[in-house]
């Protein structure tokens, strides 16, 4: 029993996994896609989207509390049956897979544009995916321990950045308070529930976590952390740059690292943040890679996940390197399709799952 306990992931590590993968989006192109539509009210979007996702997640928790030892895929199969279950799992897989391809590409673009302009894209991409694969070989326990290890540096970056940007903040930039209008903010928030998509997708790992209580605590605190970080940073971006400049900015976080300074002595802090940031993004890519692989394996009932990692890494590498996966498209067309796909599933699936499990239960009682 003790041995089994050890192979499972504890609440602390799982919290780090949640907090890191979701919160790290403050430093990639996610804020840029939010500000494009939500303008100066963009800081509300993470809060509303987070709450929406949490509401739908509470249904997942209700369902999960009934199945102590099963993961999400098994639950879907047992609720929806073999065929519809497979289709749903496949859609989940596509969502997770698209997330890793889009995100990894986004990190490569940022690295290339801001720091390593001469290095070929495919080399950076290869390094990123290779590193993600290396960490992924450690299994979920290895990944979450790594996430916990880097959780503290991430907090340090977050705190330093918020403190240093304080003097550049102009509170007037957040007005008019409702920005493009309440309706538009809600619309954008619904469209960006995909930002917290991991909340639902991580239910795949449910059976790997020590207990239901652990899982619940870790997921809720992790999400709360991510909501706060994303909202605070969106707020900082808006109050430092104002939406008129933000609309044209591809990488607000990197721009922010370039303008913060400590008096006149430490001025070029951008590269200092870069090396912490690149490590964090490797971990995020690892998590997403492992997530996609896990869904794939559970879907096809493959017991061993690790042997499939290199295959999926290779596919991601090839897809991400496709000539069309360029930066501008990432922000516009592709991301839109991706978010649209995800928000339907992520908001509706838990609800349907819950209703169906209720019906099953009632039907089971009657028979």
């Amino acid at each position, binding site marked *: 029993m003790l041995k089994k306990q050890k192979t499972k992931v504890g609440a602390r590590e799982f919290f780090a996994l949640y907090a890191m993968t979701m919160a790290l989006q403050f430093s990639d192109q996610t804020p840029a896609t939010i500000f494009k539509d939500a303008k100066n009210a963009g800081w509300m979007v993470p809060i509303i989207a987070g709450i929406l996702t949490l509401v739908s997640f509470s249904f997942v928790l209700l369902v999960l509390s009934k199945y102590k030892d099963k993961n999400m895929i098994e639950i879907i199969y047992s609720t929806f049956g073999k065929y519809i279950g497979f289709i749903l799992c496949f859609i989940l897989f596509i969502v997770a897979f698209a997330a890793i391809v889009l995100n990894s590409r986004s990190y490569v673009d940022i690295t290339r*544009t801001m720091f*390593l302009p001469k290095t*070929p894209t495919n080399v950076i991409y290869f390094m990123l995916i290779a590193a993600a694969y290396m960490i992924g070989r450690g299994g979920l326990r290895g990944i979450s321990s790594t996430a916990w290890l880097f959780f503290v540096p991430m907090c340090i970056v977050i705190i330093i950045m918020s403190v240093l940007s304080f003097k550049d903040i102009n509170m007037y*930039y957040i007005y008019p*308070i409702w920005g493009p209008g309440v309706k538009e903010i809600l619309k954008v928030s619904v469209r960006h529930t995909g930002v917290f998509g991991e909340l639902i997708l991580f239910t795949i790992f449910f059976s790997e976590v020590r207990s239901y209580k652990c899982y619940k605590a870790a997921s809720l605190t992790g999400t709360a952390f991510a909501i706060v970080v994303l909202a605070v940073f969106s707020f900082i971006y808006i109050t430092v740059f*104002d939406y*008129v400049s933000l609309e044209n900015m591809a990488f607000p976080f990197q*721009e922010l690292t370039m*303008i913060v300074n400590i008096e006149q002595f430490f001025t070029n802090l951008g590269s200092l943040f870069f090396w912490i940031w690149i490590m964090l993004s490797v971990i995020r890519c690892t998590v997403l890679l492992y997530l996609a692989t896990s869904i794939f394996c559970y879907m096809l009932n493959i017991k061993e996940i690790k042997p499939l990692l290199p295959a999926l890494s290779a596919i991601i590498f090839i897809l991400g390197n496709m000539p069309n996966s360029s930066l501008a498209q990432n922000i516009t067309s592709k991301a839109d399709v991706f978010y649209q796909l995800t928000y339907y599933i992520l908001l509706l699936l838990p609800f349907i799952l819950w209703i169906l499990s209720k019906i099953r239960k009632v039907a089971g009682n009657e028979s």
Partner: protein
Amino acid sequence: MKVKITMILIMNICFGLLSGCWDKLELEEQAYVVTVGIDIAEGDNIVVTCQIANPQGGSTAGSGGNQNEPAAEIVSFTMRDFLSIRDLAASSVTRRITFTHTKTLVVGEDFARSDKFYNILESIVRDRQVRRDTYLIISKESAEDFIRNNQSALETRPHKFYEFMSKRWQESGLVPVSIIRRFIHDTESGEALHLAIYGTNEKTGIAGEKDEDNYIAGEVDKEGGNIVQLIGSAVFKDGKMINVIDGEDTRIALLLREQIDIDTYFVTYKDPKDEEYVITIRLTKHKKTKVDINTDNEIPTINVVVPLEASVVSIPSNVDYVTDEGNKNFLADYIGEELKKKTEKFLDRSKEEFKMGAFDWYLIARKQFNTLEEYKLYNWREKYPEAEITVEYDVSIKDFGRLFQPHTNREGSANQ
């Protein structure tokens, strides 16, 4: 086990070989550009001037530097676009041009007044190396002349000149602290004039008496030292330079902004009780300016109260402003009135000539609305020139320097 060891070995070799691969930088091979100048040239071309810091020159003896070397190398190239200087420079500069430490961008007035300026500036910001908090200086002559003639005896290191100057600007308010980020923001918002630092190294001189701050660059009558003068500001509207204002108007513009952009500064006034003399006063904006904007009506009303603390530093006329309460209040009101007169003149100019404000009031107006849609419908840009603006200066006299009373008072012969 064997596999593990081989893996670790391979990884370690990879780390060694792959570190930085294509983008590796040798510190010694970098040419750090401290100041960039841009001028208009014939046809579609621009002249780009780079002041490249020499890490060996100008350092103190004993720290390994070579004192005989010049502190900077200044090169100018004529070309189509700004960033291609990196390659063109390779024709004569031995090191690789790097803009990561660029502190200042100097733009010739002729170029700033042309339509092309804003486009070129945007292309500069697109580059990953150029920082958005680079200072923007507009030079009366060409930027190339400005950079070449800027020889400060105190600061042999070129980057220090601007670093230290920027602190003086903040203190005196004679020039606005203008950075590229703010310039782009003012321009993109379409609602604000941008005030950029105005400088020159041509001394023009001016007839007639001047107070201490109503100069524009070139008019300051000084001898010796660095020939560069930075005073007053270049006024930009929609990304194009339209005019120049003097140091006094710059101070007023900074005072009218809500935030504290100006620390403390000296002014002289004719002594209201004895016109023969002047009194010198140090003014401090100790609190935020209070700006009330009412956008309920078709014509916006703007009420501004500028809080100022005054320290009287010299009273050559020997009028007792110190112990006489009446005189003290009279002086405070007098300063407020003087400032108000000048401010109203400048506001009229901004409404009639520039048709735009430079005081960030549009942000306060923005706060009055619930959505961006409503704000855009109100059309602040069109409304501003008609706005009813009242300005009050709330001057309180804080102290009188180190003396209680005028010297002569002790002998019982002070005036009044």
